[in-house]
């Protein structure tokens, strides 16, 4: 449906990746002064469509029109020149460079030698105009995630973008930071800019967007005004079936303390304090959820408990046994299983087979390991069993792990960790990047483990996930525990406030 009033229109976009049809004749349009949400599951083709719009991917078929005029983008530079700018989910910022340098990177009409004062002044000006405060001379690595996002927005505004694409901008923000971002977005909207907002969070879509386009499996499922839509309606459009948001969760049957941390301190990779006196207990039969914004010590917490990171103070006990400062192997033997947040780079060896990845820890003991040797037959048999039991979809046990989809790779990790019958299971962002079906099955697996008596520590930046399956919620901020609530009594606003450091610091620290 051609419409000259669209600031940006994409017609019949088709984009194919080896083995996947990511966009299948997608039509999309957004007007000036509009916030248009692009909604869909992981893998529905949202990011692909927007990468086409910003010139990063070239579609096999279809046309892009800006202000009614057809354009052909061969590179991101072309898109920028037509006024299209994108804030990527993973920030495209050079960590070792300053804010101003990042803003000016790739700007062609700048002078040959750098004029740092002029650059800083220009950054300051845009920041003031749209309420995006940030120090132009700070290095990116010194900034919080929220500040880095501001740099990204300033970067595209400096290039004169009229059409801004934001890819899941709130995924990394606290509820309060998200609200700040929405204010900036409204200011830009009133300024006549077009904002395309990629998300899978239904509530914020309903609250901020004027219109919604829902993608499902590479196709447009619907385009509709956001007003009047309900969460359930949007969700069923996204998934193509009814979705239940509640899990039927049996009440926790609490057992003995399996994991106890007392005053644990640790440093991050830059040798700065990352955990500041963390004390925590997890009992058999419960899921304890650690809520917090990324980078507040969650990763260090998981690594310290699993022995991957040295603690500088405190004590860790597993099932009554003091394992303080032990290496990973001792922690594994003590009964700690770990589903790491980075399943590709930590959880699996990509070129080894599925069977070998399933045996990554079990190869030391019978039936697979005997003396100094390994029994390949036993490895194969056990792999076949686990593939069946955990419903892992793979061509076979000998397939290299890198060929598996994210959801199946996560099942490989869960199968390996759960089959070790652990005392304690640490799960870090176990459903990140998985589609709704896979997310559901991972969460069900975790709940089943809990019901069988495992002690589970769930670390997640996704508050919905924390609220959905944990029995207790512990909030972390800058390496300290800010507060602790039974899930039934927790309020999302209060948790969000503590995640941001909270004004009720005095109150929380007393908990």
């Amino acid at each position, binding site marked *: 449906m051609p419409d000259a009033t669209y600031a940006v229109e994409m017609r019949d976009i088709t984009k194919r990746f080896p083995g996947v049809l990511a966009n299948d004749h997608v039509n999309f349009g957004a007007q000036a002064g509009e916030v248009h949400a692009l909604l869909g599951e992981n893998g529905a083709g949202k990011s692909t469509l927007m990468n086409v719009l910003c010139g990063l991917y070239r579609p096999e078929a279809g046309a892009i029109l800006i202000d009614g005029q057809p354009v052909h983008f061969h590179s991101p530079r*072309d898109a920028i020149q037509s006024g299209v700018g994108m804030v990527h989910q993973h920030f495209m*910022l050079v960590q070792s460079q300053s804010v101003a340098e*990042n803003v000016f990177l790739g700007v062609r009409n700048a002078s040959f030698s750098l004029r740092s004062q002029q650059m800083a002044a220009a950054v300051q000006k845009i920041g003031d105009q749209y309420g995006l405060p940030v120090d132009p001379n700070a290095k990116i690595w010194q900034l919080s995630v929220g500040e880095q996002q501001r740099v990204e927005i300033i970067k595209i505004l400096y290039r004169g973008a009229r059409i801004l694409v934001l890819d899941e901008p709130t995924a990394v923000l606290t509820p309060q930071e998200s609200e700040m971002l929405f204010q900036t977005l409204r200011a830009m909207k009133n300024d006549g800019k077009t904002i395309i907002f990629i998300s899978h969070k239904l509530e914020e879509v309903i609250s901020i967007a004027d219109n919604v386009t829902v993608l499902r499996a590479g196709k447009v499922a619907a385009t509709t005004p956001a007003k009047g839509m309900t969460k359930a309606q949007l969700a069923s459009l996204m998934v193509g079936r009814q979705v239940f948001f509640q899990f039927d969760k049996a009440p926790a049957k609490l057992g003995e303390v399996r994991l106890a941390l007392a005053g644990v301190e640790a440093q991050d990779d830059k040798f700065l304090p990352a955990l500041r006196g963390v004390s925590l207990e997890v009992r058999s039969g419960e899921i304890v959820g650690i809520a917090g914004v990324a980078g507040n010590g969650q990763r260090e917490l998981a690594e310290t408990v699993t022995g991957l990171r040295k603690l500088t103070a405190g004590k860790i006990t597993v099932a009554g046994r003091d394992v303080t400062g032990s290496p990973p192997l001792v922690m594994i033997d003590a009964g700690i299983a770990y589903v790491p947040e980075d399943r590709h780079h930590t959880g699996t060896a990509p070129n080894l087979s599925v069977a070998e990845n399933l045996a990554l820890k079990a190869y030391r003991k019978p039936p697979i390991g005997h003396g100094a040797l390994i029994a390949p037959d036993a490895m194969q048999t056990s792999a076949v069993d686990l593939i069946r039991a955990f419903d892992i979809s793979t061509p076979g046990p000998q397939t290299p792990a890198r060929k598996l989809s994210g959801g199946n790779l996560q099942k490989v990790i869960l199968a390996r960790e759960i089959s070790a019958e652990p005392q304690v299971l640490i799960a870090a962002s176990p459903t990140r990047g998985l589609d709704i079906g896979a997310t559901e099955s991972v969460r069900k697996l975790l709940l089943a483990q809990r019901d069988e008596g495992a002690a589970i520590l769930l670390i997640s930046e996704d508050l919905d996930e924390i609220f959905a399956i944990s029995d207790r919620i512990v909030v972390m901020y800058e390496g300290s525990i800010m507060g602790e609530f039974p899930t039934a009594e927790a309020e999302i606003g209060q948790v969000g406030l503590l995640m941001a450091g909270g004004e009720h610091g005095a109150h929380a620290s007393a908990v």
Partner: protein
Amino acid sequence: MDLSFFVVLLAAGIRYGTGTLFATIGEIFAERAGVLNVGIEGMMLMGAVTAYGAAYYTGNPWLGLLVALIVGGVMALLHAFVTITLRADQVVSGLALTLLGAGLSAVIGAPLVEVRDAPQLPAFPIPGLAQIPILGPIFFDHNVIVYIGLLAAPIAWWYIYRTRPGMELRAIGEYPAAADVLGIAVIRQRYLYVIFGGMLAGLGGAALSLAITPLWVEGMTAGQGWIALGLVIFASWNPLRAALGAYLFGAIGRLPLDLQNLPLFLANPQLGYFARMLPYLFVILLMIISARGNMRRRIGAPAALGQPYVREERGA
């Protein structure tokens, strides 16, 4: 030992370190762009032999220099194609480049081994400045190629840290995807900087055969290409620190010649073999020192060093 001993040593250090310095600066450019090229030794050897040959057959050492630049660039182009376009392992490709350069230079250079009278680059004491006590002999009484080296380090520093293309260079080695979305041609720039690095390595080789140790001997670089690789790390990818390292290395590389006149060494000439270990041990020592320093200050390699850049791959 008096002051003049150190003046001679420092002057010799600057002289002997010049070849390594060019190679080190060249490698800094390639690595800043995200491409590790461990083939410096091979490119230096090829630069040395072709420069010497060209100078001998044409009678013009400057033509020799030009040929070395081209040959170094062409060899680096091979590496660039194999690692950037074909995305092969950068270490293995660089090793192949070294072995190829070592073998090919021996074949090409076979007829040149007997040649002793190829024209050299001219020495040029700078009038006035060369007469200044102490500083004069250290900095201003050298072969022209040494002055080029003395200028190259600050210019390279200025380019990397104070210019727009230098900023882009740092970005493509640190986070190529970020540079790409801003319209910086990552692949093309990587090619250019790898080739430029190869040209400087070739120049470093030519500096050896046309000025510093003016003749051609098989394997005459004696590991200087590998030392350059170590100096890049010691220098934290900063050309000024590279100059410091290269000149220090030059002074220590020159030390065996000075030591052999000491009574102890005159009486025991075999001790000279230990003196000849010093430059290599010195590099290991530098690596240890910089490893501790870099750990503390968190100065690391360019984040994308060694990784090929691919745009069209499906992300999460």
